[in-house]
């Protein structure tokens, strides 16, 4: 259970620092109050259905969270403490991490907005991180991610595309070395191992070096990988390196005769924005034959300068994500709850820790869109389009999931390369491959 660092009672003292501005805000407050009245009957925290009162204003009813949250964010950015106070209080009344999508979004965003308003983002993030750390056992993580992959192609999309590109780029090489910086616990590799074992005539030797952000579960993951590789009959070696400081050939143990692939799934965004270019150049120094990059399609960079813009984007993305989770999982899924909780850290980090240096790193979580990553990558690498076969494989993968998922191949306009996974027409994941 999240440790919520705030309660309704404590709101006011924290907000006294705000310069109050109460002229133009009465209308909004009234409107908000109207919404509030309408939803008072909606307090049930576990129901997923709307009350009958809401039927008249269905549009509003379905989107109350985003409206309230937006108003609140606006109030915060205008430093309107009264309004902020009021909205935060209301959100707190209505939000619940166990309710429907709106209630959940309200709950997690409320936390971030509160931290933003009270400038306690860092502390909150640290608390959330340490709680998460305690709860991240190998078993629970494994169960979580495998279940997620079963019901949604959110992660497997990138895996299939990347594996396809890697296999094609490293075809015929006898010794492969994959540098993996991903957040998917090596679930990408069993299918690659199987492909290596069955596709080629001569099974190559595979060395997998994982750069882990939090290495504790990676040890066990590595053991499983080794066992599985033995089962597949692929000569295999597994190494874990903590952190991203050692990205050199020597540091990663790259031998001269190895063909190198760098695989980044949900990884680049975890690096501070200023460091990203250096990281990409470091990849280049490894002389890889292929670099695969998979990222979530959202732009969270602008938190410092334009809070509202960043907030909108954050809200948009996580609304999609939560809706996707709701439709993919069963109603009472524990895994879904866990995945939603995982988001709380990112949301706090992006919205409430803007610009400040969070000591001890943590993870940046500032996503960029595919176009933006392309700009960075194009300075160092050249795009390597996914072959038709790989695209077909991805399409076949999507067919195995529920409808709503689709694939869009970028046509090269705007200098974007790569493919997008779309959920209900909205691009959510971007996958690309690059060569030197």
């Amino acid at each position, binding site marked *: 259970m999240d440790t919520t660092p705030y309660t309704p009672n404590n709101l006011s003292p924290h907000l006294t620092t705000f310069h109050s501005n109460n002229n133009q805000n009465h209308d909004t407050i009234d409107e908000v109050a109207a919404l509030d009245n309408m939803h008072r009957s909606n307090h049930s925290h576990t129901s997923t259905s709307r009350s009958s009162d809401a039927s008249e204003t269905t549009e509003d009813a379905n989107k109350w969270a985003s409206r309230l949250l937006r108003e609140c964010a606006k109030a915060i950015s205008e430093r309107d403490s009264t309004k902020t106070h009021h909205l935060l209080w209301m959100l707190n009344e209505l939000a619940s991490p166990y309710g429907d999508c709106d209630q959940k979004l309200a709950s997690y965003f409320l936390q971030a907005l509160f931290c933003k308003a009270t400038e306690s983002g860092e502390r909150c993030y640290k608390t959330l991180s340490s709680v998460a750390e305690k709860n991240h056992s190998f078993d629970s993580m494994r169960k979580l991610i495998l279940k997620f992959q079963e019901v949604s192609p959110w992660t*497997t999309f990138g895996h299939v595309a990347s594996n396809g590109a890697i296999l094609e780029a490293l075809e015929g090489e006898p010794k492969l070395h994959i540098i993996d910086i991903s957040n998917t616990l090596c679930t990408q590799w069993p299918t690659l191992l199987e492909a290596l074992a069955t596709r080629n005539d001569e*099974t190559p030797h595979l060395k997998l070096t994982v750069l882990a952000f939090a290495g504790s579960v990676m040890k066990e993951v590595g053991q499983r990988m080794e066992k599985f590789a033995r*089962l597949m009959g692929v*000569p295999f070696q597994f190494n874990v390196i903590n952190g991203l400081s050692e990205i050199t050939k020597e540091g990663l143990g790259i031998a001269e005769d190895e063909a190198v692939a760098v695989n980044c799934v949900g990884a680049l965004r975890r690096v501070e924005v200023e460091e990203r270019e250096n990281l990409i150049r470091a990849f280049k120094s490894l002389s890889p034959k292929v670099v695969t990059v998979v990222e979530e399609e959202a732009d969270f960079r602008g938190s410092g300068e334009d809070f509202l813009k960043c907030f909108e984007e954050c809200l948009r993305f996580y609304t999609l994500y939560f809706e996707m989770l709701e439709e993919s999982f069963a109603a009472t899924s524990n895994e879904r709850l866990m995945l939603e909780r995982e988001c709380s850290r990112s949301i706090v980090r992006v919205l409430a820790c803007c610009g400040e240096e969070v000591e001890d790193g943590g993870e940046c979580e500032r996503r960029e869109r595919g176009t933006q990553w392309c700009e960075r990558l194009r300075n160092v690498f050249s795009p390597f389009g996914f072959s038709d076969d790989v695209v077909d494989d991805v399409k076949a993968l999507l067919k195995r999931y529920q409808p709503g998922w689709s694939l869009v191949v970028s046509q090269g306009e705007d200098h974007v390369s790569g493919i997008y996974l779309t959920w209900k027409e909205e691009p959510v994941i971007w996958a690309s491959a690059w060569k030197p």
Partner: protein
Amino acid sequence: MLRKMDEGEITHAFHQNLTASSAASNNNNPPHHVLKRKRNLPGNPDPEAEVIALSPKTLMATNRFLCETCGKGFQRDQNLQLHRRGHNLPWKLKQRTGKEAKKRVYVCPEKSCVHHDPSRALGDLTGIKKHFCRKHGEKKWKCEKCSKRYAVQSDWKAHSKTCGTREYKCDCGTIFSRRDSFITHRAFCDALAEETARVNAVSDMNTSLGGNIGYNVMGTSLGHNMATHFPSIFKPVSNTDETSNQTSRGLPLWMGQTSSQAQETMVNSNLREIHHQLGSATSSGTIYGGNSLVQCSNLPPSNNYQLSWVFGTKLSNTSQELTTSTTSLPLCNNNTSVPSLYSSQHQPHQTSSNMSATALLQKAAQIGATSSDPSWLGSLGLKCGNSQGQDGNNNKFSGMYGSSFVLSEADNSACDMSQMHPLKRRHILNEESGGGQTRDFLGVGVQNHLPTFINQRVDLI
């Protein structure tokens, strides 16, 4: 002396005297024509046959014969003529002339192909067409579900019928309809980890064996566990069988198919009895065969025990002699094979651990598990067209282990297995040279159980 043929010129083929030009064909070619009707191996044509070289265009062309009335295309003129009857058009079937009674063989137009040489021509027009398509053609047909590509439409159709109908069952009991999620699950499954934990010391063997099979056979209690789980290892779960609870079939394979309690207890008691006999501290020992066949895990890894064959693996890298004589199922084999099932070559490491018979089985299976002769699956009673009997059972266990593929269709399923277990580097130790006596290693006194089991569909689960 081949002449390239254009469309419609098939009837003008040169007669090629193969004896003059080919070096590799049969020696017994008399200088004059003797019509031989014997069947040759594919790609080793009758030297007297007429060699025809068609252009790629001709080979790939389909339906060249068009009906002028409705435009329908036909592959052969004869078919078109018959069709024209329907339009009340004048039609004439060409007669077969004596000349055309000569056998024809076709060469592949692709120069680098082995079948380009007249001595390796293929005897069937449809055959050469398909060959050309498959090997040298563009793979235009793609499976919707798994995106596998085919050049020949009939291949694609055949695949599409079976694709996605297979189910994959992990040793932990979970069923998957999707292969990729099965593979990923497998890699992380606890069953895999458990298995390896038990045989950790064997790791030196494992590099060649790829040895860890996710058994779910765990635990120390002999009879029940083994009875419960063993079938699950062997029996692929078919789509229809899923409803039945795995644990309700408590019989080891060799006991036949009924899951009656009586038999189960009989097995169990046998096991326990045998276990007793061995009285090993490690509570392992073989489960089967209370006599000299029994090899206890306490025994040093004797070279006589060819564990590998049980599951058909070739332990090529082991120092043990891996003779081929005992590679088929223990069930249909002579005694020596049986003990090997339980005397793992990895034994010495096991003596200290609390090895149950089930664990031994696991190990044994694990060693063999990586080899994969898919056809064995068929012999195991999967819906496979193979006739049973001991020859049908050779070496094919291995593929079953650890993967528990559920194959609900016929022989082709066997081939699919090879996808999971790379076949290419594994040579299954070859079958016993027939005639293994059925061993009564359970002391059940039934000689026929084993082959019976083999011969029948295993419905243990």
